[in-house]
């Protein structure tokens, strides 16, 4: 447990979370969401939850980003907020 690393990761998670919600382009939002998931995975690794982090890395940062990109590819990137 290194609290400096912990704090930096938590801050990055917050920043990516806000960015994913507020960016005005859905494709960027999807990619930032992937980055958010990956940072979350690092955070959990650092907390010692290796199985959960592994799952989040494969699912959150991998497969669900791909799902989201696939859906946006067939719908639209436009968003007003």
């Amino acid at each position, binding site marked *: 447990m290194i609290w400096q690393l912990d704090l930096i990761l938590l801050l990055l998670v917050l920043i990516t979370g806000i960015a994913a919600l507020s960016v005005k382009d859905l494709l960027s939002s999807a990619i930032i969401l992937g980055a958010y998931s990956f940072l979350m995975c690092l955070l959990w690794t650092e907390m010692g939850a290796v*199985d959960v982090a*592994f*799952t989040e890395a*494969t699912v959150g940062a991998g*497969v669900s980003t*791909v*799902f989201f990109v696939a859906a946006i*590819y*067939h719908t639209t990137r436009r968003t007003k907020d």
Partner: protein
Amino acid sequence: MIKKHDDLIVETLARLLTPFIQAFALYVLFLGHYSPGGGFQGGVLVAASFILLIIAFDLEKTTERFSEKFNVICNGGGVFIYAGIGVLCILLGGNLLDYSVLSKILPVGPEEARALGILGVEIGVEITVAACLVSIFIDLASKGENLGGS
């Protein structure tokens, strides 16, 4: 996403990476007892390898290898393995999912039988997760047009 773009580098890399990803998935599955990982993570990795193939090549070429009917069989089959092991435990005289009674048909003691039971259900989870995630991705990426359903 499902159209074919001829890109030699991407295709070669995808070809090269796929067996390694799948081998790693099996490693994650079978060493789930000793290291992080297990059925779910392995299944997602298998699904990721197929998704990589679909993105790098195109949908038709990939579904030649992993046909739609086989996909649906795997969807249900994995869960069926899990439920089947559970019901087998009832038939052998235990409660639902009580793997220790598997020692009656396996040549091991009840503790090892539990470990083997865990391995069995993890295999079931792996199959179902891999097939289901690929199936969801195919539906999303093709708008459900390329394949017909049941």
